[in-house]
């Protein structure tokens, strides 16, 4: 699925290959596309600190977007506000100096761009026809996964700090 040497190299230098057998193709494609999009639109000098799966995730702010259809998923971006400010500034190429509405707009703009390109890729591969809900910003995240489902957290290290990307693929209803 990876069609870019840089993306492949970043993934090979992480625990991606150890975990990939336990991931669905949806999650694997999401991670590969995310690395490609971060490299293209934010910064190519990145490392994946770790990929982990958890049952619960809590955070003091929510910057998220739902991917709808079958399968559907919850995606979010999280991290230390000072680091998120740097990420937003680098992506938007604007003078962003505090974790304010403009900064959150930039973070959600990136999430929306990446999620859009991800579902376009799935459509081109004739895998799934999915859609997106409008991005959301709220005061907190309090996620608990259902049985047989995990929340995947991808910690991406930039020169200015680490940003976490969350993907929770929702179980397909019977």
């Amino acid at each position, binding site marked *: 699925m990876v069609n870019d040497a840089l993306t492949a190299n970043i993934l090979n230098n992480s625990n991606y290959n150890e975990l990939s057998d336990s991931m669905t193709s949806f999650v694997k494609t999401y991670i590969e596309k995310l690395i490609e999009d971060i490299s293209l639109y934010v910064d190519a000098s990145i490392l994946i600190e770790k990929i982990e799966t958890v049952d619960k995730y809590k955070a003091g702010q929510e910057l998220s977007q739902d991917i709808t259809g079958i399968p559907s998923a919850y995606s979010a971006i999280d991290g230390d506000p000072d680091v998120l400010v740097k990420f937003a500034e680098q992506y938007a190429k604007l003078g962003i100096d505090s974790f304010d509405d403009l900064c959150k707009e930039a973070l959600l703009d990136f999430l929306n761009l990446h999620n*859009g390109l991800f579902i*376009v890729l799935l*459509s081109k591969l004739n895998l799934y*026809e999915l859609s*997106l809900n*409008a991005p959301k910003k709220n005061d907190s995240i309090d996620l608990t996964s259902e049985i047989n489902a995990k929340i995947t957290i991808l910690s991406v290290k930039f020169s200015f700090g680490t940003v976490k990307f969350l993907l929770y693929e929702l179980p397909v209803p019977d």
Partner: protein
Amino acid sequence: MSDIKMLVCDDSILARKSMTTMLNSFGYDKIIEVANGEDAVNKYKSERPDIVFLDIVMPVKDGITATKEIIEFDPNATIVVISSVGTQTHLREVIKAGAKDFIQKPVDADLLRQVLKHNIPQ
């Protein structure tokens, strides 16, 4: 500067700013910005812009519904949908709703220039 009036509708302030900057650089300065599909329909009715740029994924009213409502009001409206969600299903819906063109985000300036040349009187 051109007399062409344009309506840019996107819930992302960054996307609106980026579009307006590009359009300004092409010589267009009569640009109205709105942040959701409902405002786009209302602004279309009151301002009658020559061309409308609509995102798909937006709160309140999405771009495909807004396209249908604008076309219902004015079957000759020129609507270009600009979105990150250019899946096969969305492209079919966009064309069926009556949009003249589709641009995949991130917007390429050369492509935008071609789309403008194709869709507005020079």
